[in-house]
């Protein structure tokens, strides 16, 4: 059921009051949501249990870290026994559901509150912003500041949340969409009115998805020329092999990555032999190998949050190639990460009668 949330002052205050009353009524024990730091120059996922210390800004256009990762760290050792609300964006929710599939997060007793995402700014753009970035974005402006990943977002409306805080299609106020029984149970006794604009909401969501699909397609066509070893070497020319992309990635969860190990450290004579056979080679070695292998390991679960690109100290526009790689690979296996929590990941299942042309000559 979709409810209407009447606007008080502004969207941020409205959501804060809603979350505060959930805390006060004991519907939740604590919550994790984006909260601005005292400087106002950044915002981070913050766990709040004291209603007086709650001043979240769930619309802050900033993604310093995926809340998927944060919740994974909080629940993978042991899940919560008391209700914990998590307010997250669509890409963060997709990441969290993927992590739950590989037992890196426990969704028990979590109340997943999705927020329509209007996109996020690069960290620096956000902190240096002249004015209030949240307000600009909520007004429907500021598209020129968005990160590449957000411009080409595959779906900014969170699926599979218990409750969705809807901005798209909302004229005055916000939508509150109870998408599961758990969500309905929380919202049903909060004195909310059912909205009369269900169709308006649905139309707005399908419009924004359609628009994103189009920009995404254009973007992939625009970058389809990064093909072949020489173009790739040019693309990764400034890579310093720091592995920040991997560390920022919500999907790269391995505690001990192969590329952080000493597997690639060889005896000196092997390097000398390689130099003799090739004439010369660049160090650090295995940097293209790192990227290609990383794609193989995480791309089917890639939620396209673009944190890899944001983490790159050399500003390599990773999403220029990752968008296409993810699109093609996920299409091959008809898999959409974060879409269906029950769906198994492609690399852990198989069918006897599939891909039969592979392996036969």
């Amino acid at each position: 059921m979709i409810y209407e949330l009447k606007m008080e002052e502004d969207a941020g205050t409205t959501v804060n009051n809603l979350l505060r009353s959930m805390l006060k009524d004991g519907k939740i024990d604590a919550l994790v949501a984006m909260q601005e730091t005292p400087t106002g120059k950044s915002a981070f996922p913050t766990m709040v249990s004291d209603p007086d210390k709650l001043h979240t800004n769930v619309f802050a256009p900033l993604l310093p870290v995926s809340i998927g990762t944060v919740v994974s760290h909080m629940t993978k050792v042991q899940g919560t026994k008391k209700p914990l609300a998590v307010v997250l964006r669509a890409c963060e929710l997709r990441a969290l559901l993927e992590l739950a599939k590989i037992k890196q997060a426990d969704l028990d007793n979590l109340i997943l509150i999705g927020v329509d995402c209007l996109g996020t700014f690069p960290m620096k753009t956000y902190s240096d912003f002249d004015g209030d970035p949240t307000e600009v974005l909520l007004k429907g402006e500021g598209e020129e500041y968005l990160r590449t990943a957000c411009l080409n977002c595959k779906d900014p409306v969170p699926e599979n949340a218990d409750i969705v805080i809807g901005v798209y299609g909302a004229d005055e106020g916000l939508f509150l969409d109870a998408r599961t029984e758990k969500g309905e149970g929380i919202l049903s006794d909060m004195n909310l009115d059912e909205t009369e604009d269900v169709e308006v909401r649905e139309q707005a969501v399908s419009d924004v998805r359609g628009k994103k699909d189009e920009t995404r397609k254009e973007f992939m066509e625009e970058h389809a020329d990064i093909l072949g070893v020489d173009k790739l070497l040019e693309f990764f020319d400034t890579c310093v092999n720091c592995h920040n992309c991997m560390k920022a990635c919500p999907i790269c969860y391995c505690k001990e990555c192969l590329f952080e190990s000493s597997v690639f450290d060889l005896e000196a004579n092997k390097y000398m032999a390689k130099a003799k056979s090739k004439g010369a080679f660049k160090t650090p070695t295995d940097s293209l190998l790192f990227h290609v292998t990383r794609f193989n390991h995480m791309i089917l679960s890639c939620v396209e949050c673009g944190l890899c690109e944001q983490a790159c100290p050399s500003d390599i526009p990773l999403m220029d190639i990752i968008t296409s790689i993810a699109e093609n690979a996920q299409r091959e296996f008809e898999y959409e990460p974060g879409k269906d929590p029950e769906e198994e990941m492609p690399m852990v299942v198989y069918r006897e009668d599939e891909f039969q042309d592979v392996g036969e000559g």
Partner: protein
Amino acid sequence: MSENDKTKEDFEPKVVGFLCNWCSYAGADLAGTSRIQYPPNIRVIRVMCSGSVDSVYVNRALIEGADAVLIGGCHPGDCHYLNGNYKARRKMVLMKNILTTLGMEPERVWLRWISASEGQKFADTVKEIVEETKKLGPNPMKERWNI
């Protein structure tokens, strides 16, 4: 003449083969003991299962300049570990898909089912890979010092 100076026609491809212990490796062994002739271009690495061949091994072989990579496993349904070869097949599909998107010559990577009794099939497979790879020419990654 160093290997790098050879032209497309007369170059001898280097093929890295990951063969599963239970079928393909035994198949290669049989080819040897049966004295079946096949090109000496393949360098065999024995692995316990085709399903254990991670993309990192294949990609490293390619990036370090192998002209082709073969993964050999038991026929579907015959895997010693029941389903490793089905998983190898999925990994191969993903690997080739990514290599295609990146324009990195997916046709250099091969997956073949070769049983322990198929010495001839192993020899034929190596022959086929060498012929096809000669048509492709040397792996360009061999030449790149900045890779």
